[in-house]
């Protein structure tokens, strides 16, 4: 059941992205940027946590969860240090994603050759 929910919710988020690309002629960079902002906004109203509760990886795998994690890290730090903590905490929770993207991206670039 959790697999089915992850599949359906994750798939539906991608469908929104596809519609933005096909109908609104947005580039992939515009779509992903908008989705990250949307994730942060939804989390601002506390909605994204509910979605993760419901769909599991269906909500954590799409790039929207990146916005949600950024905000979560910021708010956790703000609890301790006040508004200064917002800037301190932004990358707290997304560290794994960004650092692994840098690391693996770099390693693959060194080891492989573009195939065309």
């Amino acid at each position, binding site marked *: 059941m959790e697999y089915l929910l992850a599949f359906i919710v994750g798939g539906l988020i*991608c469908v929104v992205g596809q519609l933005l690309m096909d109908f609104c002629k947005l580039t992939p960079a515009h779509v992903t940027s908008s989705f990250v902002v949307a994730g942060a906004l939804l989390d601002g109203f506390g909605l994204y946590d509910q979605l993760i509760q419901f769909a599991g990886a269906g909500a954590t795998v799409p790039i929207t969860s990146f916005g949600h994690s950024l905000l979560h890290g910021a708010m956790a730090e703000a609890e301790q240090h006040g508004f200064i903590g917002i800037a301190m905490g932004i990358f707290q929770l997304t560290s794994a994603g960004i650092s692994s993207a840098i690391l693996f991206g770099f390693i693959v*670039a060194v080891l492989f050759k573009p195939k065309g």
Partner: protein
Amino acid sequence: MSKQKLTPEQQEYKEKIKPLQPKPPYLLNVAKAFLVGGLICAIGQGISNFYLTFFNFNEQTVGNPTVATLILIAALLTGFGVYDKIGQFAGAGSIVPVTGFANAVTSAALEHKSEGLVLGVATNLFKLAGAVIVFGAVSAYIVGMLRYLFQMWF
């Protein structure tokens, strides 16, 4: 979509060629994006469950290793020249998941390998994916500040 003002002649041309232009297969594209996007998320769920079962992670923290694993897989698929083929098939289905982020990072780095490790690979790593981080950080900061002020006053 141009912001430039079109002349009447240009507008007339655009109208005239509309019936001659192929329409994107909207329904098919949506179906493919749904299938592949959903599949990637279901795989993510499987990876999550794996870390939950065999390692010391809980529901809150399992997102990190899951995302990192998906990024590793996507980076390798990019290196093997497979991810661009998936992308042509799936569209947003392989762009919206975090694997698309990994593909954007890896493909840009790989493409600029010919210019060296520092000015090629490293400098261009975030050429495409950087926008996501910029908009994510800026929007998280603004939303975070608003929420902080809101909590203070009410």
